[in-house]
């Protein structure tokens, strides 16, 4: 018997809301949106945690420019604070080295992190999901009953077809979908808005492609002043 699953509820009991940022395909902006969302919520005075579950391409520490100090050991491990946000990521344990994990390893490592990380009081825990509907998605759904999914898609058919697969699965198994954000919008056409309506999922808004975003990654202050972050900020009240 794996005792770790029994403690996860306990670990998250003082966390008010848990938001998984997902959308199935890679490269659609899950990580930049997770970070911007965490920062914008924090700016509003909420206590925020950020958990990067993409073990193959962890990105949030780069976006936030986080210093990789080792998590403190207490009666568990304490998520280090990055400008007031409690931040946990596999990078603390692998640094810049590859983590060639099979699915069973991804599963075990996620359950381990959820079992030993002490988040304490949080208003929001934002989880940056890896692409796919594999072990990470299935395990967070299994382990965290109160989680809602924030789905992302670009306007590309390639992205939308994947997000749609995921949305179908979530609806079928009654996992709450908070809504869909269209990312990297170009032009005024809102393809995703129409598609979300067809699926009966709430459309939360479009984030434009921001030419300047890339150069602001790694500097939290500049990052949170981009047009991108401001547009995320406008969506935040619809999520709270």
């Amino acid at each position: 018997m794996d005792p770790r699953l029994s403690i996860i509820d306990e670990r998250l009991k003082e966390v008010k809301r848990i938001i998984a940022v997902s959308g199935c395909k890679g490269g659609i902006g899950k990580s930049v949106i997770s970070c911007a969302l965490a920062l914008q919520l924090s700016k509003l005075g909420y206590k925020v945690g950020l958990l990067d579950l993409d073990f193959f391409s962890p990105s949030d520490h780069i976006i936030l420019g986080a210093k990789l100090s080792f998590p403190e050991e207490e009666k568990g491990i304490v998520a280090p604070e990055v400008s007031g946000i409690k931040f946990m990521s596999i990078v603390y344990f692998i640094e810049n080295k590859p983590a060639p994990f099979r699915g069973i390893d991804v599963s075990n490592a996620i359950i381990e992190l959820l079992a030993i990380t002490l988040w304490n009081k949080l208003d929001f825990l934002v989880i940056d999901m890896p692409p796919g509907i594999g072990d990470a998605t299935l395990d967070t759904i299994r382990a965290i009953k109160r989680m809602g999914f924030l789905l992302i898609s670009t306007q590309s058919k390639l992205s939308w077809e994947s997000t749609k697969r995921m949305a179908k699965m979530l609806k079928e198994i009654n996992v709450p979908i908070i809504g869909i954000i269209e990312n990297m919008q170009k032009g005024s056409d809102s393809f995703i808005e129409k598609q979300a309506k067809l699926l009966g999922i709430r459309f939360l808004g479009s984030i434009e492609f921001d030419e300047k975003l890339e150069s602001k990654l790694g500097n939290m202050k500049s990052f949170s002043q981009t047009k991108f972050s401001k547009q995320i900020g406008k969506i935040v009240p619809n999520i709270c």
Partner: protein
Amino acid sequence: MHEWSLAQAVINGALDYAKKHKLKRAIKINVVLGELQQIDVPAFKLALKELIKEQQAYKIKFKIKEEKAKLRCRACGFEWLFSKTKEKLSEQDSELIHFVPEVAHTYMRCPKCKSPDFEIIKGRGVQIESIEEISE
């Protein structure tokens, strides 16, 4: 000592099980500690003892067994014991494996073919082997 959080998991898991299976008031938890996770056994035992006091529902005893970690390479089939290769790890890498045993795939390689694609056959970490009713 993050051993505390794992001890909490063991007590929570055992209590959930005992309640679900309507066990009588006294139970023994047989815990297995897999070597790969390199648990600090005295710290873990101390945590269990403290945590047992904090709950009223059950009278709990525990028995702790350590289990050697065994690995098998998926690339070449070679099997080996963690204890035989452990000394090659730096202290820091050992500590990282202590927190998340899967990062063994980052810091360890098959001793025969150097592949990182190995399976942890046994001895990964903390497990509950069984829970028994005992006489009070």
